[in-house]
């Protein structure tokens, strides 16, 4: 039979030319899918291993008693604020009321120091002479000493003695001090009457305040002592537990190595391994006994603190001359109730602490997603809470969209519907050119120029106080720059959406006597609305994933915004999910808890962008059906 129509050409490895070409293009598409899959897989695996490790860490935190001490630390930290506020209030009140007297006292003491330093030998000579009751020697020593005093008082400078300038405007007081110094007798060591009077005046005037201050300052002594004692113990426990765990691995390694050795070396290795004792479980229970035993001490210390602090605060004088002092005292009184409530709560939590209580696995998840602290590389214990970073990212994105959305939609409408051909050829490439600016350059601009100017402008008198910028690098600054980066994305997609509106719609509208603007508002935008929405969403995706600008400009302070300032949170420094990864990833060791925490942040970020993109695609699809 004659064959027709058979395939021509040779086959290589079972594929002809067409097959190879198809395979080449197909494999290119395949590679990107495989890579995407691998990235997702890697990200998910690394990130999800955070939770068991975090759980382990939380278990150690509880077992080693660090949790118990953590409560005490919290109590002490809160208390220290009262001490520092009281001190500030005390000294500003002191200066306000007894500035002159304090100046006299301090200056006299400083003068005395000078005199004693310089005239030590002469004073000794005088004392010896007086002991020996040798008239001539006494007279000589006295005149020598007097000459020294005359020299000293003529040379001494007021600024160096009265270093705080409290007597700057009191020349007669200064003169009196010098006068008194001239007649100072190093053996009698008599204090001049007016100095003694000044000391008496101020100590009497400040007595009640000083007492309250001392009460407050001494209130926490017991608790502080307890804290330092227990911190040492519990840190040691945690360290020992850690060591024992690594010992286990070490012993295993030595034994494995010994298998390959011969004779004496093998014996030595085995002996070394023998020395490493491994227990089934680290004896937390017996190690934390001192902590359990100090629960009563803790109760006692807190009770003392509570009593003394309450008394001290109650005794703080009400009518103060210094405005700053009364403000501080006001703060102290306001903060008292909240602190006492926290004190009770943490006392209860501390008393409920049991070393062998179970840690729920859910806790390791909840503490990550709802924790409002992110503390790393700390000397005490690391805390991984997502909230401050998430709020930072969301805050900056909101600011960025607030500015970018109206600008880009407005520009898109103008270019697509209202501009002439020439304007179009100018505006469109200009806006798309913004995309060409490297983000590091934008960040640099944000630090050096925008931040500086924003701060200056915000000091203008019409700007409300809560919006005045204290930190040059803050969320607002970063948001503005991100808005600039989002504009090209939103603009281009928006313009596409407007372009997709059939020309016949605008023709029909214009033929009915509508103006161009009416046509845009009533027909074009409502028809393109899903496309515009998708554009905004993709802009959001762009903004939330941006790293370099926020890392440089957002200020990188990891804390929850101070909600009390209302819109003022916009001008506070903040940190973001992208920024923290960029900042901390180079410093962490692979496999550590910190490393996995950063991966988990990355996974959260990835999920957010992914859902934004999916939502945008869904919206665009719906547009297709409309």
């Amino acid at each position: 039979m004659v064959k027709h129509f058979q395939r021509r050409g040779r086959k290589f490895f079972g594929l002809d030319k067409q097959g190879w070409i198809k395979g080449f293009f197909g494999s290119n598409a395949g590679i990107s899918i495989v890579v995407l899959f691998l990235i997702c897989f890697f990200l998910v695996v690394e990130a999800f291993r955070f939770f068991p490790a975090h759980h382990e860490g939380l278990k150690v935190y509880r077992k080693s008693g660090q949790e118990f001490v953590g409560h005490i630390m919290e109590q002490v930290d809160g208390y220290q604020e009262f001490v520092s506020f009281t001190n500030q209030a005390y000294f500003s009140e002191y200066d306000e009321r007894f500035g002159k007297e304090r100046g006299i006292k301090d200056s006299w003491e400083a003068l005395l120091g000078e005199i004693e330093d310089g005239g030590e030998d002469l004073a000794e000579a005088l004392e010896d002479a007086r002991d020996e009751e040798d008239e001539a020697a006494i007279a000589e020593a006295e005149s020598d000493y007097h000459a020294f005093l005359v020299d000293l008082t003529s040379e001494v400078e007021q600024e160096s003695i009265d270093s705080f300038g409290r007597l700057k405007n009191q020349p007669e007081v200064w003169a009196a001090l010098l006068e008194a110094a001239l007649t100072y007798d190093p053996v009698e060591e008599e204090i001049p009457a007016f100095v003694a009077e000044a000391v008496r005046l101020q100590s009497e005037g400040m007595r009640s305040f000083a007492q309250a201050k001392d009460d407050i300052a001494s209130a926490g002594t017991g608790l502080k002592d307890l804290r330092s004692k227990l911190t040492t113990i519990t840190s040691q426990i945690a360290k020992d537990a850690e060591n024992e765990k690594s010992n286990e691995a070490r012993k295993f390694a030595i034994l494995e190595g010994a298998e390959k050795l011969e004779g004496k070396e093998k014996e030595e290795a085995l002996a070394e391994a023998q020395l490493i004792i491994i227990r089934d479980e680290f004896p937390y229970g017996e190690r934390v006994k001192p902590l359990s035993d100090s629960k009563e001490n803790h109760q006692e210390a807190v009770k003392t603190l509570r009593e003394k602090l309450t008394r001290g605060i109650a005794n703080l004088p009400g009518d103060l001359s210094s405005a700053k002092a009364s403000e501080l005292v006001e703060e102290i009184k306001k903060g008292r109730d909240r602190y006492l409530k926290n004190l009770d709560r943490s006392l209860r939590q501390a008393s409920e602490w049991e070393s062998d209580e179970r840690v729920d696995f859910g806790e390791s998840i909840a503490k990550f997603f709802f924790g409002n602290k992110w503390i790393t590389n700390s000397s005490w214990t690391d805390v991984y809470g997502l909230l401050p970073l998430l709020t930072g990212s969301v805050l900056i994105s909101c600011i960025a969209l607030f500015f970018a959305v109206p600008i880009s939609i407005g520009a898109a409408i103008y270019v697509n519907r209202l501009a002439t051909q020439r304007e179009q050829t100018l505006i469109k490439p200009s806006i798309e050119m913004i995309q060409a600016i490297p983000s590091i350059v934008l960040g640099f601009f944000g630090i050096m120029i925008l931040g500086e100017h924003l701060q200056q402008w915000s000091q203008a008198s019409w700007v409300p106080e809560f919006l005045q910028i204290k930190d040059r690098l803050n969320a607002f600054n970063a948001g503005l720059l991100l808005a600039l980066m989002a504009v090209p994305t939103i603009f281009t997609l928006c313009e596409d959406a407007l372009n997709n509106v059939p020309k016949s719609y605008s023709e029909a509208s214009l033929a009915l006597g509508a103006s161009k603007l009416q046509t845009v508002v009533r027909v074009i935008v409502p028809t393109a609305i899903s496309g515009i929405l998708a554009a905004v969403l993709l802009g959001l995706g762009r903004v939330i994933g941006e790293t370099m600008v926020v890392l440089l400009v957002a200020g990188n302070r990891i804390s929850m915004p101070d909600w009390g300032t209302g819109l003022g949170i916009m001008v506070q420094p903040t940190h973001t999910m992208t920024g923290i990864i960029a900042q901390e990833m180079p410093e962490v060791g692979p496999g550590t808890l910190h490393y996995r925490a950063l991966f988990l942040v990355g996974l959260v970020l990835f999920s957010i962008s992914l859902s934004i993109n999916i939502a945008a695609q869904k919206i665009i699809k719906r547009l297709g059906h409309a």
Partner: protein
Amino acid sequence: MNDSTVTLDSADAPQVAVNEPIISIDDLSFSYDLGDTNTLRNISLDIPAGKVTAFIGPSGCGKSTLLRCLNRMNDLVDTAKVTNGKISILGQDINAPDVDAIELRKHVGMVFQKYNPFPKSIYENVAYGLRVQGIKNKSVLDQAVEESLQKSALWTEVKDRLGTSALGLSGGQQQRLCIARTIAVKPQIVLMDEPCSALDPIATARIEELITELRQDFTIAIVTHNMQQATRVSDQTAFFYLGKLIEYDDTEVIFGNPKERQTEDYISGRFG
């Protein structure tokens, strides 16, 4: 109102007696490329009020362009330009600098080749022209919508679903909705650019019926490729060829006893 601005407001617009020209085109030349080549050349044509005038001719002869000159839709093309002559509607030169194209279009409505209702409800489509004029009164709008839909023979079909999307209607219904939308603004003149070319024969018949009824209230200029349609609906017919007006006369004359050879060749199908 400023005296120097001439507006075509329906209240004080000059009324033209029947058989007097409502549109008067005088020696018009028009170009799409700023005058390099003229798409329309020296066209002079008077369209009487209250009649249906059909524009026929082979593709590219300029009949649609002429129609779009009448409500200045060609303004949308940046490089479009009237190079010679003028168009007067209701006695007013529509290309004069003080004429507002938006005001003009309220008096000269247009129905397009492809039905193009907005992606809004049926009600909103008809009310659109009034809404952009700033009319908000619900009863005025309701009345105008009902009246226009009745005139365009759509009322009985859609009165129970005025709130549903206009895009759910059939093609013929959508085109009639577009006519309703156009006449809701109460223009004096309605321009139709091949209104039936996208419709099936039955829908076409209904539109033709509608045109015959509408001639009582409006002056209609219609572009058509369908010679039978021209004979069925129009009073006058103008035949264009290569941007020139070849012949313009009563429809019976054009189709029965044309004066020009070209016209005869075209209507008898010898070229086209």
